[in-house]
């Protein structure tokens, strides 16, 4: 019994195709492994656009004499401010006095993690960027140190590293020639924690800082925002900062 020539030909063609496919899979397999990088063990889930991290600072609780948040940030992130005008300042204390009544309030000033960050708008290399969860960061791998972002920021939140840095904290790389600012302790947040300043304020200070999700109507932060009016600094600029102040 012989099959007509025409009916065997497609089978042979299919077989050749399948063999070829198997061969190319063997060739491609090492390349495919490149895609599986991200599936590492014990990796954090990453930034989600469902949340927007923010801070609420209660000026009525914060005092002029306390510096706990600044100290904690400095230790955690390994920067030192020796009082020179060009020294780094991820967070600083500012005092505000009403000239009429003479009443004084002291609050921490840091990157406001704007929803519409002007530093991101002006960055020529794309090093300034906003993460999915609203944290504004500098990718110092591509920062060229032009400092446009420092000029654009109305809060003076950023600083430039002028000198060689040694003995950095393992989780907080910093280096000469790049701009840096508060990262809202992104490494700690990614690991499920809270920023070092908030932790220190509750432990050593007066509990004037609250960290939470601005998108979640049931978060402690949003409940507190609903209770008392809170101000955005330079609200006229419509940057929608993620750091809010009560009692100013």
């Amino acid at each position, binding site marked *: 019994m012989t099959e007509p020539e025409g009916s065997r030909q497609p089978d042979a063609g299919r077989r050749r195709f399948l063999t070829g496919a198997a061969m190319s899979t063997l060739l491609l397999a090492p390349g495919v492994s490149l895609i599986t990088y*991200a599936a590492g063990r014990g990796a*954090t889930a990453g930034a989600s656009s469902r949340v927007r991290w923010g801070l609420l600072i209660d000026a009525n609780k914060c005092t002029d004499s306390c510096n706990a948040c600044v100290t904690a940030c400095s230790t955690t992130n390994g920067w030192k401010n020796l009082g020179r005008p060009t020294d780094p300042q991820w967070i600083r204390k500012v005092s505000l006095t009403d000239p009429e009544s003479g009443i004084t309030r002291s609050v921490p000033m840091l990157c406001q993690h704007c929803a519409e960050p002007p530093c991101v708008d002006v960055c020529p290399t794309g090093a300034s960027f906003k993460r999915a969860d609203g944290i504004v960061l500098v990718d110092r*791998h591509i920062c060229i140190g032009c400092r446009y972002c420092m000029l654009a920021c109305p809060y003076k939140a950023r600083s430039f590293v002028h000198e060689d*840095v040694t003995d950095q*904290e*393992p*989780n907080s790389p910093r280096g000469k020639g790049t701009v840096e600012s508060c990262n809202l302790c992104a490494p700690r947040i990614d690991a499920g924690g*809270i920023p070092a300043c908030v932790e220190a304020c509750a432990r050593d200070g007066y509990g004037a800082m*609250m960290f939470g999700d601005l998108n979640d109507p049931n978060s402690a932060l949003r409940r507190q925002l609903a209770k008392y009016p809170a101000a955005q600094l330079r609200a006229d600029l419509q940057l929608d900062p993620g750091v809010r102040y009560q009692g100013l």
Partner: protein
Amino acid sequence: MRDRLLIFAGLVVLVGLLTWPSWQGLLAREAASAPTPAVREGLTHCIRDTAWMRRHHMELLMHTRDDVVYRGIRDPNETIPGCMNCHLTRLADGSYPTVSSPQFFCNSCHSYAGVKTDCFSCHSNRPDPAAAGGAAQSVRVTAVASRETP
């Protein structure tokens, strides 16, 4: 035409001399292999296959860099402090080698291959105490406090 032997002998010597670097390379490869990076005692496995790491570790570094910086996906084993946890070995006096020291584990291969890196002008060359031990399943101890502050 009487010098034919001499001419050909001379040509062979000339060609041999011109291709000497190649011969030298072939001979050297048999004699000595590339250096291997230092690793803490008692550890046998890297986060990937050793042969793969030798060729592709820089791609892994670049990939995890973008994951960490832009997407917040952090695997404590696959960060530069994670490398330090296993590969950084103490000197005789108990201190860690500096980045420029030949004992620093990156330098053993990088000086051999003539490749310069600038990772450590920003990154710390110390192990991360929060991810110590190589099998860093624990997140930063100080950071596990509840997110809801009163």
